[in-house]
């Protein structure tokens, strides 16, 4: 199964069904968490000024959501080439050598996140018996963001490995979108 996905993801080819499902689910999770985070914090401001009530749990829950967004979103950021790096050295290599070199780098990154997943799980188990300050849920729940994100990162990197080797995500995209293009068209 994994092998098929890998072949589907060669540069230029559209993603396979499994890959689209993975990316779609991942994106949906991130979006929902960001939205809930925003609603919680904003609602707290509103209730404090309109009704004089502050909900103590919102700060803690929204912070946990932020931690989950960070780790669950790291793999998606990789797909979009958003993890800033200094590519100067690689630019000096010949295209062939660069691909070999990036393959090695990719394996190093996979090993790092695999290790992070292992220690992250142990950390979450360690934290399971303790309770968080306000909501009193097991601390292991927010701790779990790190290993979950690390495993997801490994899956993302494996599925886009050929693209990673070819640096196939164009340039880092910033705030480009229709709004700016309209401004540009005006020239």
């Amino acid at each position: 199964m994994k092998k098929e996905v890998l072949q589907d993801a060669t540069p230029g080819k559209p993603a396979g069904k499994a890959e689209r499902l993975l990316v779609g689910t991942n994106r949906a999770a991130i979006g929902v968490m960001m939205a809930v985070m925003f609603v919680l914090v904003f609602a707290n401001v509103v209730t404090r000024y309109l009704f004089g009530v502050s909900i103590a749990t919102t700060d803690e829950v929204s912070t946990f959501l932020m931690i989950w967004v960070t780790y669950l979103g790291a793999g998606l950021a990789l797909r979009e080439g958003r993890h800033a790096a200094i590519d100067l050295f690689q630019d000096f290599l010949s295209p062939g050598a660069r691909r070999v070199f990036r393959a090695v780098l990719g394996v190093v990154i996979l090993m790092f996140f695999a290790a992070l997943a292992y220690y992250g799980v142990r950390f979450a188990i360690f934290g399971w018996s303790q309770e968080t300050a306000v909501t009193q849920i097991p601390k292991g729940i927010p701790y779990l963001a790190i290993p979950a994100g690390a495993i997801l990162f490994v899956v993302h990197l494996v599925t886009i490995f050929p693209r990673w080797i070819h640096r196939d995500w164009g340039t880092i995209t910033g705030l480009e979108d229709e709004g700016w293009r309209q401004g540009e068209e005006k020239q």
Partner: protein
Amino acid sequence: MTVILVGVFGLGLAVGLPVSITMGLSGLAAVLLDGRFPALVVPQYLYNGINSFPLMAIPFFILAAEIMTAAGMTATLLRFANDLVGHIRGGLGHVNVLVSMLFAGISGSALADAAGPSAIVMRMMKRAGYDAAYSGALSAATATIGPIIPPSILMVVYAISDSRVTVAGLFLAGVVPGIMLGVGLMAANHWISYKRGYVFRSERPALLEIIRSFWKAVPALLLPFIIIGGILGGIFTPTEAAAVACAYGLVVGLMVKPGLKLRDLPDVFVRSGVVTAAVLLIVSMASIFSWLLTILQIPQSIALAIGGVTTSPGLVLVIVAVFVLLCGLVIDTLPALIILVPVLGPLVDQFGLNPMHFAIMIVLNLTIGMITPPVGPVLFVISTIGRIRLETLSRAVVPLLIVELVVLALVIAFPALSTFVPEMFGLTH
């Protein structure tokens, strides 16, 4: 342990491993190979580094920027800037500077800023007939303005890492130096355009047209004032202010000046989530790295070394400036800040410096380091996006770099430039 930590870090950066992963990897390698600490300190510090409510200002600033862009509010800023200064000689160059001032770099990464708004104006400049190298150089130079002018993610992170300063104080402290940078770059752009005979300019719009584009830009222009005013007035914390800014953007975009559709919203949230992940992963990974530096007493020995050279506060500022500039040459602004603030902070107490002045100087130094040839990372990004040879770009950026160094020298020499505005509002830190 020091050798492993610093060695893996240096090697990782040099071979092009992402900055965030480099810091995490060197931290993990140091902990595992040294054996003095249990391996679980690694996930513990990765977690603690981002388990912070004040830090949540960052995702909300990013979300606010995405909402503004999706609602077309960013485009109104660009149009307003173009109507205002586009008709002057070197017009689009001025637009480039002004847009960076109005839409101050929200991402906290000089690299991402260089690839974002600056890159768009760079393409517009090239199309209008400016030579590619100058367009690129100016875009690199203007990318340094964002982090100084509020609201700035770098300032939020600085205030979280150093209890000597507050977010409100730093936001206000950046106002005058940011305007000085903008005015300085515009002056340089005017002079260069005059010297090289750049005559391209857009038509001078009628006054009514300027007023109209100003009116359209008002909602976007108000945003920073809502954020800063809310924080200063003690109405909300920086995190809440950032959330209110998002709500404001949604209300304006969906109802007041409809440019945003409900079906755009999922994408806005997803995109800001992905950007947040990239930024906060750096913060998370930097915290294990910077904790190990502290354990190894590296900050203390650097501070001791700098403090031992001289007893003059003025000289210390210059030494720190050179040191920070060199750091900016090799590492992106956000991770550099997280690593350097605990290293250099103690000097403030030792020499009786003003902490806000010190902070502005460090942030300015870092961002200028990012555009210093031949190794400044922002130059790489611009050279890649604009397909400009690094050597050509490096030469073109020199006059603009000189202007920025002059501004930096003034900011270092006259603390009042940073401290005057916050003190006007009764903030001493």
